[in-house]
């Protein structure tokens, strides 16, 4: 198993796509942070007098899917921004959350992982291994190396994002960007890594089932877009209509992507625990199904 991991890491090191997609991941997250930082700077500007001639004041409100007017912990991209706009300083955890909440890292990551994980089947290299190495080890090695890459891409993107955030927010808003609480950062990083790695496992499962690069990339792109959110909303409407469940229940709370879009450094421990448990369950199930699919099919 260790040999297979070394072999896959060597392949990653030698592949041009590793560097190209890493640059794209850094660029997308950097653009996200830059635009967020500029918006934060805008929100920090003193409010102009916007009373109309009749004395009616107009205020902006955030309109986002996760908003609850009495929930102090706002989530989602805009919610994160609104939260951020009220701060006196920004921590590493805040920057990490801003960087990942729009799925901007997940998109290039998904594409790269499909290219990496499916390359053996696509070019026939798998025939060199398929009979000699246990198939579950092939899948596990791919997953472990995908996790390694995810950690690498996230940390490097975060590093660049911190530098941009520090440069823009500190100069424009006169507000500090600091590392902050190590515990908060560890929590944010852990949840984001776990959720991204879980989605990587789901994508690898799709690859093992379909053996198709196109289908797998389409799946990964769809996951990174707003399409699943619409599906969850429809599913919620159906459930609330026909099943006797709590009004607070939402399917979106029980998918791994919620840990990406719905995470807030200030969330309570129950929410954190739920996110972790959901991700671990999906990770295990996706891995088991991926291995079973790899074992069942002949290698062509």
């Amino acid at each position: 198993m260790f040999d297979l991991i070394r072999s896959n890491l060597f392949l990653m090191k030698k592949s041009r796509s590793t560097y190209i997609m890493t640059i794209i991941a850094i660029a997308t997250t950097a653009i996200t942070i830059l635009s967020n930082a500029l918006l934060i700077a805008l929100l920090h500007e003193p409010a102009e007098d916007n009373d109309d001639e009749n004395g009616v004041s107009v205020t902006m409100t955030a309109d986002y899917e996760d908003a609850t007017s009495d929930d102090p912990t706002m989530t989602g991209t805009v919610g994160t921004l609104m939260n951020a706009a009220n701060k006196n300083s920004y921590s590493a955890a805040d920057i990490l959350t801003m960087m990942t909440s729009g799925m901007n890292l997940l998109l290039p990551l998904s594409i790269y992982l499909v290219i990496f994980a499916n390359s053996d089947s696509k070019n026939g290299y798998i025939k060199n291994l398929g009979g000699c190495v246990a198939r579950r080890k092939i899948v596990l090695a791919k997953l472990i190396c995908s996790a390694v890459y995810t950690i690498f891409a996230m940390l490097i993107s975060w590093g660049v994002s911190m530098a941009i955030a520090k440069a823009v927010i500190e100069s424009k808003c006169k507000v500090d960007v600091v590392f902050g609480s190590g515990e908060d950062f560890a929590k944010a990083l852990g949840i984001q890594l776990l959720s991204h790695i879980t989605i990587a496992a789901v994508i690898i499962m799709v690859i093992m089932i379909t053996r198709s690069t196109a289908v797998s990339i389409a799946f990964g792109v769809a996951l990174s877009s707003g399409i699943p959110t619409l599906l969850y909303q429809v599913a919620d409407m159906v459930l609330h209509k026909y099943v006797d469940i709590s009004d607070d229940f939402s399917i979106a709370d029980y998918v791994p992507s919620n840990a990406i879009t719905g995470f807030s450094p200030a969330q309570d421990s129950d929410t954190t625990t739920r996110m972790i448990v959901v991700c671990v369950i999906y990770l295990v199930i996706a891995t088991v199904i991926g291995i079973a699919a790899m074992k069942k099919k002949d290698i062509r």
Partner: protein
Amino acid sequence: MEYLLTTDSLTKIYHGKPAVNRVSMNISKGEIYGLIGRNGAGKTTLMKMICGLAAPSAGDFTLFGKRGAERVKMMRRVGALIEAPGIYANLSAADNIHIKALAFGVKNSAQKEKELLELVGLGGVGKKAAGKFSLGMRQRLGIAMALVADPELLILDEPINGLDPQGIAEVRDVLHRLNAERGITIIISSHILEELAKVATSFGIINNGVMIEELTREQLMAKCSSHIDISVSDINKAADVLQEMGFNNFRLVGENTIGIFERTNESAQITLAMAKAGLWVYSICTHSEALEDYFLKLTGGVGNV
């Protein structure tokens, strides 16, 4: 005799049709076994099952005397090149070998890479990406990769495809050396019987998924070489005449017919000698069957020749 590989009614069914149908064969240690068949005969499917790339629908096989889970562990002693070589097009030949060496935990892989590339005639390719290789070069790289883990059994599916005559001769030479110097048992498939006949020591002829004949090289040559069939009135006396003429390689092939397998250009002298000995010669004819014709006759191709 030690059999490295034995298959017992090995069968593979795709969409209700058998691609390989109850194939049983034995391959001895040290053999070069040529698997011959037309395109779509089942050679590749059979090899894939042996390599563990495809699960048999029925039947079983032993590898190095082991079955089941024990057999899976033996797969490390097998090197294979199945269909097109599986290589990373953007990596160099050395890097491709290195990846496999890492996966198999091969020590001193740098030395191994150099050795294998020299062995298959790719020593001078440097850092050129494998995707820019010619078909023949890719085939050779595939053979080199099959040798990475020092296999005892080498399975090569049409390795001479796309090679020029010099390339074919070089591969033939490599296979001979691997077999003679390292004792590697080789299973090699092809539809070019003439070439296979130069390298294999035994043959299996497969058609429509069924193994129709297995024979040694000597048996194949005997069936395919040119020979004289002579029908005479007295077989025993005819045998004495042939021996006096210095013929050794002849045998009874029919009730009053002797087959002579040497000096097949001396039919006139044979007829005269028989006549001088007082024998009636009912018929004498020279048969010459090319390997290809023999193969086509067996497999029902080209109107059964």
